[in-house]
């Protein structure tokens, strides 16, 4: 579905590469999490896919079609994009925010209204919220609106950049698993950037680990959680494993007592 072939991007004319010679295939309907430290190039990689950034070298294709064959705005209208800052337009109501891409694409108004209501139901917000302004919503509610907005014109691909990063742990977990259900139900292809390895392990089918612009590991969560030759990948995967281990022991202890 998404193919990157030898893609490089530097912000300083080639001294340091944010993304270096990356080749990556994201098959249709897969859920890929990209993890890594700050500055590892994961957000840059994501932005190259919808041309928020242009690569210095390499080719990117979506559904077999080079991304450069479309104007950036047309490409982006076909790809849902959700990010940590959420970026709801503060001067537009929730209904206007959710309906923005259909409006840009030129859908008729009644169809936009129907789609907006459908989406607000989908992300489990009351319809009364449609008339509200973004500032009147909580962080979690705003992120639900952000997801609804990204899904508005039924994109096949969703790009998510730390989508749940600013939320409290409970909301974060709920929203994460709700989104995974949407992903499965709507047969989406999702690339999610996160620094939270636990989140990646729990939601994704496949985890890509980046370091200094390179992909250093790529595989299903259970594989990466098992041994990996790279010490940094091992260290990165150590945290969820240790947490899971700790929880398992606690649960066993309780079972033994009970």
């Amino acid at each position, binding site marked *: 579905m998404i193919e990157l072939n030898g893609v490089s991007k530097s912000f300083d004319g080639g001294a340091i590469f944010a993304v270096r010679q990356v080749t990556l295939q994201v098959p249709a309907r897969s859920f890929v999490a990209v993890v890594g430290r700050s500055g590892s190039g994961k957000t840059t990689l994501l932005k190259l896919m*919808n041309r928020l950034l242009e690569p210095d070298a390499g080719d990117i294709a979506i559904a077999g079609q080079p991304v450069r064959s479309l104007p950036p705005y047309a490409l982006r209208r076909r790809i849902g994009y959700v990010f940590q800052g*959420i970026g709801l337009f*503060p001067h537009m109501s929730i209904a206007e925010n959710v309906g923005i891409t259909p409006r840009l694409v030129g859908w008729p108004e009644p169809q936009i209204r129907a789609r907006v209501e459908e989406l607000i139901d989908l992300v489990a917000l009351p319809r009364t919220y449609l008339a509200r302004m973004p500032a009147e919503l909580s962080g979690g509610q705003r992120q639900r609106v952000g997801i609804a*907005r990204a899904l508005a014109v039924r994109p096949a691909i969703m790009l998510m950049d730390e989508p749940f990063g600013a939320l409290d742990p409970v909301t974060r977990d709920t929203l994460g698993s709700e989104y995974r259900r949407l992903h499965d139900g709507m047969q989406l292809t999702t690339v999610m950037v996160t620094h939270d390895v636990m989140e990646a392990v729990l939601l994704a089918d496949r985890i890509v680990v980046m370091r200094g612009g390179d992909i250093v590991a790529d595989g299903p969560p259970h594989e990466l959680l098992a041994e990996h030759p790279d010490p940094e990948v091992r260290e990165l995967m150590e945290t969820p494993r240790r947490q899971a281990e700790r929880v398992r022991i606690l649960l066993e202890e309780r079972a033994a007592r009970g």
Partner: protein
Amino acid sequence: MDERLRSALHLLPDYLSQHVLLSAAALILGTAVSLPLTVAASRSAGVRWPVLGLASVIQTVPSLALLALFYPLLLGLSSVCRHFFGFGFPALGFLPSLLALTLYSILPILRNGVTAITGLDPAILQAARGVGMTRSQRLWRVELPLAAPMIMAGVRTAAVWVIGTATLATPVGQTSLGNYIFSGLQVENWVWVLFGCGAAVALAIVTDQLLALVELGVARRRSGFVWLGVGLLLVGIAAAGAVPLADAGRGGYVVGAKNFSEQYILADLIADRIRAGGQAASERTDLGSTIAFRALAGNELDVYVDYSGTLWTDILGRTDFLPRGPMLRALHDELRRRYGVELLGALGFENAYVLAMRRDRASALGIRTIDDLARVAPQLTLGGDLEFFARPEWRLLQARYRLAFHARREYQPTFMYRALTSGEVDVITAFSSDGRIAADHLTVLKDPLHAIPPYDAVLLLSPRRAADPYLRSALAPLEGALPITLMREANYLVDRPTAKLEPAQSARWLERAAHLTGGF
């Protein structure tokens, strides 16, 4: 009601409507220019710094100077335009005022707009790209709506500045509420000065509040407020536009006047003569000295009174001086040849520069002539009006009499007389027809060497009206009809400290005294 207040109210529809139209046109044009500049400046730092810098520089030019500078600029452009395309445009009045005020209105709108757009949350701009907006969609759907409240705040600031500064359009020939202030200052009619200030302040406050309503509507996204505010503003502008339209139907002759009492009185007198024969006349007063002549030569005025010495030096640029008769003949021929302006005739009095002293001080020092003055001048202070020391008469006086004063000061004429009576200065450059010479008991120093040229008051007709039989016959009785004593008295009726008359009342008195009443 006080006569001064009554006459002020009578002129209000004209002054206010012109002020409103000028300010509105400047603000609308200024906004129209500022918005694209704002967008360009917020897009690129290469545009931002030069544009903002230039706008700031314009703001630091004193407003009166900015208005005045457009006159020579437009005059030059107009002649270039006439040369290449066969038509010119007026360099006085509405156009220079509009351009200067438009420039003035740019900075607040531009600065607020650029600050608002460049300060937008990057996350929102990224989202705008992320949802698939084109560059212009980002501008119209995100950047401008979010910057709108701050841009409106800039428009409000600009509106208040423009309305205040528009009072300074009067000296470049554009009628405004400033006419009250300039005329009032000239004849010490403080009621008019206050009336003009008050009207400008009231207009600024009302405009600001209506724009505040629009701003509130934009910020809260309440289109009702926006339309109410815009609607009321438009009603005001339309009402202002209706006044000159109604006036335009009347047409008639345009009588000009410079910015002092004698000129107001003579303009009223001339307008009365024109009306006495059944034609309509309107006045444009408070024109700067050479501006009045340029306006006449450009057919923006039909008639006004000027002085032979002024025309000789300022318009013809001559530095030599001829005796009275030859000078008038030479003036007549030269003005007709160069400008097509018709010198109809002299009114009978002279308004020359003279040196005057308080009578008690002059006799105490034993001064009767400028020669006498030259002996003690190094101990004395000379007060002049704002242009005297730049004029050739001053150079001639200095050269002929070897005058060297201890100090010299410049005053607006009204304050110059005050400075003399209070003893701040010892000698002033008075005008020979000024009523205050008699009233303040001043001694006019004799000029035995004839250093100061003649300043006969003369009637000038525009090229368009040079052969106008109606105007010529209406004004013919004025020739030689106004001796210096009558003119001094008429001036004094307006300038005296108490029981002042309006220039129009004084003009009526002068008509009766000079036996000019009745039709022709």
